[in-house]
């Protein structure tokens, strides 16, 4: 068991199973299939992401360095939040990028009753340590427990 201290971008506490992307998470490429064609399991469709391609991220603790790709990323994430086709939380090793931040903030300000805690700045060690299937808990102070 290890603890990592990050920065809270959008608040909340949650416990979920980890799913890990070591490369950047391309939001549009990953989620478009899930949003457009009714894939309720939210299976990642990004062919360039060998860690996540074909895996469901619904209700999981998505661990990633940052998001990449199209600037529709934020609104895609916002729509995913609105449709509740989202991970339980997003945990960024790096400082959050502008697209993911936009999605998380838009959901926080404009949607009622949607909670997807986001923590960033968890460090490279976090991403080296965490593996698929580990249990993740986010505490109120932004501490992330991995076990």
């Amino acid at each position, binding site marked *: 068991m290890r603890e990592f201290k990050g920065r809270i971008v959008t608040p909340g506490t949650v416990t979920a199973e980890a799913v890990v992307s070591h490369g950047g998470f391309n939001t549009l490429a990953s989620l478009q299939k899930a949003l457009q*064609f009714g894939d309720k399991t939210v299976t990642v469709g990004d062919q360039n992401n060998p860690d996540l391609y074909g895996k469901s991220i619904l209700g999981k603790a998505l661990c990633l*360095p940052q998001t*990449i790709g*199209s*600037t529709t990323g934020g609104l895609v994430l916002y729509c995913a939040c609105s449709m509740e086709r989202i991970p339980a939380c997003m945990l960024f090793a790096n400082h959050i990028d*502008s697209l993911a*931040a936009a999605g998380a903030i838009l959901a926080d300000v404009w949607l009622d009753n949607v909670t997807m805690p986001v923590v960033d700045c968890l460090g490279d060690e976090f991403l080296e340590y965490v593996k698929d299937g580990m249990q993740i808990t986010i505490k109120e102070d932004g501490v992330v427990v991995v076990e």
Partner: protein
Amino acid sequence: MMKLTDEQQAILDGAQGEVLAKVMKTLVMYGETFGAEKMVPVTSKYNHLVTSFGLKMLGPVYELMDKLIEAGAVSQQKFSVDPRPVDKNVPANFLQNLIFNKIMYSKQDFYEEQLNKLGLMEKDAFTCACYLDEVGNVPKKGEVLSWAESSAVVYANSVLGARCNRNSGIMDIMGSVVGYVPYFGLLTDEGRKATWVIRIETEKKPEAQLLGSAIGMKVMEDVPYVFGLDKWLGTELDEAACSYLKDFGAATASNGAVGLYHIDNLTPEAKELGEELIAQDANVYVIDDAELERVKNNYPIMWKDKDAKPKLCFMGCPHMSLEQLKTWTDRVEAGLKEAGNNKVVIPTVFTASKPVLREFEKTEYAERLKKTGVITSYICPLMYMNNPLCGKMPVITSSNKLRTYTTSRYYTDDEILVQITKGGK
């Protein structure tokens, strides 16, 4: 905490209504996440938005736009927007047309009406390459933008020297609704410094979208300073160099998350400041022909039958420039002549904005291109490809952006030319 002016604070406190207060709150939270200490005015003439498509799945976006319209919180600037997703010129069978018009893009007319109310520049201002002269959304050096569309942002920052963060869709229009954006990242001098040095050591001119892909995948969201490309592009931003950088930048932005690059001796800030733009302890990435080959060979092929005969070829993601349409007319004609064919052997679509296509139609090239069988369209190939039917089609492209987001297969420009003019012969 961000310091707001009295006017900005009043908006945040609701003096101009609840909706505008929420818009300001969104921008303030966005800025504070990145350590912004203030908001600065948007100074460009026009904005550019990324969301151009009336996709049924984007219902939550249209609801939000309705809230803005109902509250009178419309854009203070006119704007261009990314390409339309459907065009009857592009080959599609009955089922595809049904899926496009009745299922996927059934909200297109509704959304375009929303865009009109919010401040669309003019009815044909639909293109990702809004910065081309024919379209007329060309920001000046140093102007502050609230744009989205990754390929347009990276071009405006790098080639035009404007200042814009990689804003997301929705966030783009919010900046021009209140007229301010948070001051951080690529808006600041410090944020425009390069933390990567790229050394090009190829024996031949590197393929724009392959080089951009290699750099994007390596540096992710960082700013690269590229040495050795002036050897191939020259030291002036002529039409050919701008077309190259358009495609190069789109690949850095889609295969990674690059929002700004500097090309030694060529792009405006590199010409002005040179190596002063390189941060201390910058990382180094050397690219030779073998490295580009390695990157290309690592692209996954998403076709079910990897030996399938291509059914469609898309060129123009991002949209082609007038110079590219002319150059490619010459190339296709020469290729066909060499192969002994009269028309392209794979249905081929060249995409460009309506204003560029209108100018192209005025030249003698237009008739010549038509004779080769190549179709021109204002469509967004990415939007065309994003459905299960087209996704199963063996489509080829030399766009690394299209490859990244769809099942299309990447070939270099030279390889594409062989495919469309000679085929499997």
